[in-house]
């Protein structure tokens, strides 16, 4: 399963947000998109999902142009965890996760026992089974994030696009979500996520793409792309990247802000 952008230009109507984007996401890998506020991460995601039309170039899902695919076909291949989730009605967590099954249902169908089973599995994988009957609008931000990821899992797509899945989470929940993302990749799911924290890329990403002023500044293996110079350039702050020894003998890079 592969999602590819080829020479993609994206934006809203007359306004172009970014262009010349060429990147690929394979199932089983975690690709992290880094970029400052306003660099166009969310707009790029929406274009990759076919929610916004590409202004130039193409989005290919398993080799097929996304423009030729129906919404439910796309949804069976790629699921989406939006950053801002506006809940208008008090659906329960179970009902919310169940909505992830929509792409697998016929137009006039309601969820069957199989869909309920997939929902239960997805909630279990995210550790929110105990919240099943809680009202989605009344749980904490972290629990809501886990609910949305569970909904994406229930969708049973091979690729997941997550827009800042760790925003609004406390320190512990951030790490738990990143750990889950890593585990998903281990299960063969491809994850494309955006984050504001370089350390999150070090923690979970196989590859990193850096978006700066609407263009891909760099993309490749995490340790190669994530240099102090590049981070300095896109964020405008001085940083140092240091390798820290881990308990198992390996090392991991961390990003230290030094000044601004």
């Amino acid at each position, binding site marked *: 399963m592969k999602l590819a952008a080829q020479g993609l230009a994206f934006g809203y109507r007359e306004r172009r947000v970014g262009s010349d984007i060429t990147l690929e996401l394979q199932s089983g890998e975690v690709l992290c998109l880094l970029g400052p506020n306003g660099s166009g991460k969310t707009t790029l995601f929406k274009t990759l999902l076919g929610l916004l039309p590409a202004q130039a170039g193409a989005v290919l899902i398993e080799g097929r142009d996304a423009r030729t695919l129906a919404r439910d076909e796309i949804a069976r291949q790629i699921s989406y965890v939006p950053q801002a989730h506006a809940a208008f009605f*008090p*659906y329960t967590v179970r009902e919310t996760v169940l909505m992830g099954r929509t792409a697998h249902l016929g137009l006039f169908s309601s969820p069957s026992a199989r869909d309920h089973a997939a929902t239960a599995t997805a909630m279990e994988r995210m550790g929110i089974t105990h919240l099943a009957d809680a009202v989605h609008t009344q749980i904490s931000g972290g629990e809501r994030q886990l609910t949305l990821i569970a909904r994406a899992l229930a969708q049973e797509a091979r690729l997941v696009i997550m827009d800042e899945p760790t925003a609004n989470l406390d320190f512990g929940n951030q790490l738990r979500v990143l750990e889950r993302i890593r585990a998903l990749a281990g299960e063969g799911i491809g994850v494309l996520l955006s984050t504001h924290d370089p350390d999150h890329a070090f923690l979970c990403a196989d590859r990193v793409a850096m978006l700066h002023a609407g263009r891909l500044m760099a993309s490749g293996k995490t340790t190669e792309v994530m240099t102090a110079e590049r981070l300095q350039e896109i964020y405008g702050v001085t940083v140092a990247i240091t390798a820290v020894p881990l308990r198992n003998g390996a090392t991991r890079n961390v990003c230290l802000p030094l000044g601004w």
Partner: protein
Amino acid sequence: MNTRQSWLLLAAAVALFGIIAVAFSVGRYPIAVSDLLRVLWSWLGGAPHGLDPTIETVVLQIRGPRVIAALLVGAALAAAGAAYQNLFRNPLVSPDILGVSSGAAVGAVLGIFLSLGIVAVQSMAFAGGLAAAGMVYLVARTVRGHDPLLVLVLAGVVLGSLLGACVALMKYLADPYNQLPAITFWLLGSLASVDPRDLRVAGPLLLAGLLPLWLLRWRINVLSLDDEEARALGVETRSIRLVVIIGATLMTSAAVAISGVIGWIGLVIPHFARLLTGPDFSRLLPVSVLLGAGFLVAVDTLARSIGNIEVPLGVLTAFIGTPLFLWQLAGARRGWQ
């Protein structure tokens, strides 16, 4: 559906039958429930009832059509309101948000103004309702670059007030002795002049509008999410939205055509149903239909029995609906927050 909700549905159905029995019995010519059952039994092909033929006339010709009309209109307005509330992601939306009632009013008032017959007036009301909603939809389609739902609501409000001005103009020009009372009477809503023939036309139209809402019930749930989220989940929001609008508009127009403008039901009843069932549309729709049907039969029975003259339905639903709504607003918010 859990046990509590099954009980609720059962209770609502039993209450509905109780209300229907009362509606048949109460009135200037009281009818005992046993007589009612005997008449209905013989009508269904059972043994002759052997009662005064007046009783049969009252049950089958006068109250029967009226009770059925109240059931249909109440159910239709409540179902359309529930669908629109999900569609517009707002529990304060009522079926006339797209100008259906104002459009129907213009059609009906124009028919009365031109001294047309009752069938023509009803047809014009029906066509006016459809035309108004269609126009709102087309206007909203041509405006691009905004939230499509917001544009729909705004177009509905703007067009609704224009149609309101048309009604006001015709009232101003109408003959104050003949036409004006008829216009006022129509605008306040009434089931007093419902004919069995009306039901044969309106009934199928209402069911035709209800059917897509029921079939698409799961998609309508997902439609209540943010537009992009719903699309990412695999829903073709634009076409589903159009089908829901057509279904709800068809029901509302057909209902308004036979009953005149009856406000509040489409807003208060789905709201109330939401408190009982939660937001899931596959439970909300049937409960809204039951409650809406029961509510209008009860209100209509009240309208024709509390005084020497009939109280207009639109007035009575507002008098009952407003305190109900405020009570809900102040107390239980569970249905939508």
